[in-house]
């Protein structure tokens, strides 16, 4: 073990610029995957929440659809999409997005169901359309929680995109995997260090953004 880990040092900084570029690619994959997931899940959540769903059929259908995409792990989506769409970050983004639609849809529809019904009633009483009433009375209430869930899912998506890199999704994950498989341990150590720094920076940024918005 010590023998193995000693091969990790000293770190090899010669490929640092390429690694940073791959890291940014990983960040972009995770970010796009979770942002698109959120954008698509938000309207579906209103269909999948008991109190805002326009019809019971739509409610059941969207619930089942959300469970379905949520039950499939990203790696399975990744394997299917990377095979059919080709290697690279695009299929990885789609894989992350699909899984996140399922996760956000469940979390947000539960937040909608738990929202205070008073403001919705007041909006109805002023004569606004039902969907406008729902949107304006519920969204401000759930927004902080949606945001913190988004940042958490973004963090998860970073880790996921590393794994997807292993199967050819690009980014720092793929580089880490390749360096490992080719015994470039002095590069592996730097890859791992960069990943740690990235996650810490994201966590810091997320909490400061959240603080400012709430």
């Amino acid at each position, binding site marked *: 073990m010590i023998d193995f880990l000693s091969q990790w040092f000293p770190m090899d900084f010669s490929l640092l610029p390429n690694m940073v570029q791959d890291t940014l690619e990983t960040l972009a994959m995770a970010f796009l995957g979770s942002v698109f997931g959120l954008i698509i899940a938000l309207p579906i959540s209103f269909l999948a929440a008991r109190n805002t769903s326009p019809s019971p059929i739509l409610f059941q259908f969207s619930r089942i659809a959300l469970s379905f995409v949520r039950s499939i792990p990203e790696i399975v989506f990744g394997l299917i999409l990377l095979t059919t769409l080709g290697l690279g970050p695009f299929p990885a983004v789609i894989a992350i997005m699909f899984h996140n639609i399922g996760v956000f849809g469940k979390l947000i529809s539960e937040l909608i169901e738990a929202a205070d019904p008073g*403001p919705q009633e*007041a909006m109805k*009483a*002023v*004569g*606004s359309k039902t969907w*406008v009433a729902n949107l*304006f009375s519920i969204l*401000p209430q759930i927004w902080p929680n949606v945001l913190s869930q988004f940042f958490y899912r973004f963090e998860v998506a970073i880790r996921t995109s590393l794994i997807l890199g292993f199967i050819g999704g690009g980014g720092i994950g793929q580089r880490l995997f390749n360096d490992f498989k080719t015994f470039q341990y002095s590069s592996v150590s730097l890859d791992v260090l960069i990943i740690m720094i990235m996650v810490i920076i994201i966590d810091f940024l997320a909490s400061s953004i959240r603080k400012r918005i709430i």
Partner: protein
Amino acid sequence: MIEIKNLSVLYAGNTEESLSDVNLSLQKGDFICVLGKSGAGKSTFIRCINGLQKPTGGEILLDGKTITYAKEEDLRKIRREMGMIFQHFNLIPRLSVLQNVMTGTFGYRNSFKNLFGMFTAEELKRARSVIAEVGLAEMATRRIENLSGGQKQRVGIARALVQQPRVLLGDEPVASLDPGTSDRIFTLLKEMHERLGLLTIINVHDIELAKRYATRIVALKDGKVIFDGLPKDFKEAEYQETYESQSADAYFGAEI
């Protein structure tokens, strides 16, 4: 102005009607306080008027047109002529006073514009003047959470007034406020009622407030109207009947 005919409401699962065979004629200029014990049907009654509650029998008419059987689109038009204030204010959290008041205009605006938060200058001006009228001019940009109960209810009133309503409904608007604040809220309501020539219908628990401000008192018991008349005619016997209480002296005794 509002005609209530044989109104009945039976909630699913109940055997007794929450409102049974209520007949009333409400006129512009009436400041009506609805009295009754908890569960007497006061809230149900108020909520039937703007269609938040569907009756199981009878009908309510506004200027001869049905509210009860109105289509969704017509119901929205009726509702925007009726301002409503609530016990728990029902303001939208995390928004400012001004934003909350602006939501009162949602019934009048096409939804596409609503979505992007664009308001006309006229609406903004109206909202600001209403906020000033309820005495919150300096707080227009404050968040709802930072207001006291009385101030929140003032925002609720402003939201109702920005609709430019003809009818003002209040579902126990002062039940969670202290006596002094309740009194000031009623003073404000009465002032607006007179200035704008509204029909005002308010549920209250506080019989003293009702007697002081109402021009007409309606008492409900077990879903039936047991008194409908001038405040001065609502005496100990009526009080006893409404509240079935042996301790009416506690209130009326103090006056004598």
